[in-house]
């Protein structure tokens, strides 16, 4: 359980995290979503006590992280890949961290095995790829068998196989009743992994919602119809809760009716249909819509027509 109340962090005049309040519950994967620069990493660093909040507070399992007597057993965190001395082997890195709380070599070898790094565990971590660094970071997060797991952009640098592995691992951890809080700037990834979402932009809370609700609210039920008798069809379909747009001649975009209803009306009236296609706005589009005003760094040029 992670509880943030009015969490704020300012660096000079820049407000990285702005009055953020949320509760992360155990037993589910909670996604922490926002564009780059939205304050996700800063928030996670404050949860781990690495950065001090300018105001507000955040607790893990009832207390500030630094007040736990056995912190590695409370929270396991991957804050950035390669928070590791490049000259040390992966195994020695984990042994040193484990020693702080009396965890022995057997457990270290266990987590190395768990993340699939056995063959490279004795090599210098400086030579690790980003993906291997992520796996090592996850190994260190799991070292203390913690009740709460915090991962900042864990899929960065992982190959598809690794991404699938993380996804399953996170769901498994949550299913065991742990609190799992995972940040990402990819909505599509969160849609597959998370059950609940905290969405931030420019340090502010934009949404605190279940993925199911988010998906539902995001989907516009729009049906695209192509017909040589588009104008006739338009007249037949129009009704109180129906809106119809025509982006180009011969094409209608209908909201308020589903494809079965439209097809039935067309058949009854002898209207020929070339296309009858229900459209769903992708989650990615919905996410971009939601955070459009909050994106920190816009690309300076946009190719006309490419914006969804």
């Amino acid at each position, binding site marked *: 359980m992670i509880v943030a109340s009015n969490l704020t962090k300012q660096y000079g005049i820049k407000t990285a995290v702005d009055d953020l309040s949320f509760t992360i519950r155990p037993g589910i994967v909670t996604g922490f979503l926002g564009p780059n620069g939205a304050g996700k990493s800063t928030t996670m660093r404050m949860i*781990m*006590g690495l950065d001090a909040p300018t105001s507000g507070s955040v607790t893990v399992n009832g207390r500030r992280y630094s007040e736990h007597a056995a912190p590695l057993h409370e929270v396991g965190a991957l804050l950035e890949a390669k928070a590791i001395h490049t000259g*040390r082997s992966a195994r020695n890195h984990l042994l040193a961290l484990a020693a702080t*709380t009396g965890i022995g070599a057997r457990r270290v070898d266990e987590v190395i095995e768990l993340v699939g790094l056995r063959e490279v565990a004795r090599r210098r971590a400086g030579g690790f790829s980003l993906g291997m660094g992520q796996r090592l970071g996850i190994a260190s997060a799991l070292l203390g068998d913690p009740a709460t797991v915090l991962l900042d952009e864990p899929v960065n640098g992982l190959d598809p*196989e690794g991404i*699938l592995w993380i996804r399953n691992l996170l769901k498994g951890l949550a*299913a065991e009743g742990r609190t799992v809080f995972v940040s990402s700037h990819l909505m599509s990834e969160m849609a597959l992994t998370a059950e609940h979402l905290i969405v931030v932009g420019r340090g502010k809370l934009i949404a605190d919602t279940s993925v199911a609700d988010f998906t539902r609210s995001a989907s516009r039920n729009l049906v695209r119809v192509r017909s040589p008798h588009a104008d006739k069809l338009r007249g037949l379909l129009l009704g109180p809760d129906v809106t119809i747009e025509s982006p180009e001649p011969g094409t209608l975009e209908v909201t308020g009716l589903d494809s079965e209803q439209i097809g039935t009306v067309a058949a009854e009236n002898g209207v020929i249909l070339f296309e009858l296609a229900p459209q769903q706005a992708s989650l990615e589009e919905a996410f971009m819509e939601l955070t459009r005003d909050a994106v920190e760094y816009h690309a300076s040029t946009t190719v006309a027509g490419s914006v969804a």
Partner: protein
Amino acid sequence: MTTTTDMAAVHGTAPVRKERVTQLRVINSEWIKMRTLKSTPITLLVAVVIMVGLGPLLTWGNAAHSSQGAPPFNGAELSLGLYHLAQLAIGVLGVLMVTGEYSTGMIRASLSAVPKRLPVLWAKAAVYGAVVLVLMTISALVAFYSGQAILSHYGRSVALSDPGVARVVFGTGLYLTVVGLLGVALGALIRNGAGAISSLVGVLLLLPVLSDLLPSSWSTHITPYLPSNAGSALLNVVPDPTLMSPWGGFALFVGYAVALLAIAGVLLKRRDA
């Protein structure tokens, strides 16, 4: 690599016992960190070679080739004189013990494991201080005895039991230990390797040179109290009247290191990692 994880493995074959972070455990952790980096044995070896390898060579050179009328030397001071050089290796490694963690990002992992933070600094100082003390005391003894073996051929050796000699021999290990602690403290204060090493060299080597530029009416009030001058008062067989008393000077030297460590501790607690 697999895409699914046996969740039983997350718990481990034996339940992971929830044990507290203690200062002793953090010391153990720092000991593991220290001996698992290649730079540690290499740098320490450099310091040892300077003391026990170059030391006797210098002793022999002075004994065999001093020209007539050259100022007299003391056999103990001569055999240990290369502490001037060894202190650089010891101090730099002390700096790197801390700044290496900042430059690599390791510090975030260290402070996540020990969020109270201060135990990490104390453990680094304790581990490194102990290692330097043991290693440099042994090195000083070896350098002293091999130096005296050479000097005995020229009838100029001294004994450990001669007045002031034991203080100089064991003082060399003590002095270098404090240099190592200064390195750790400066590393933690400045958090940047190049900056901390320059500061260390400036404090130990340049300040005494600069103070010589001052008018003598000023420098007599400043020079003896500079860190390396205060500390090296311990390393003269016959106390130097222009410096502080041997143990008084060393106490001040320790005081500097303790003060810097304390400030480093306060900043470590306050600053974002």
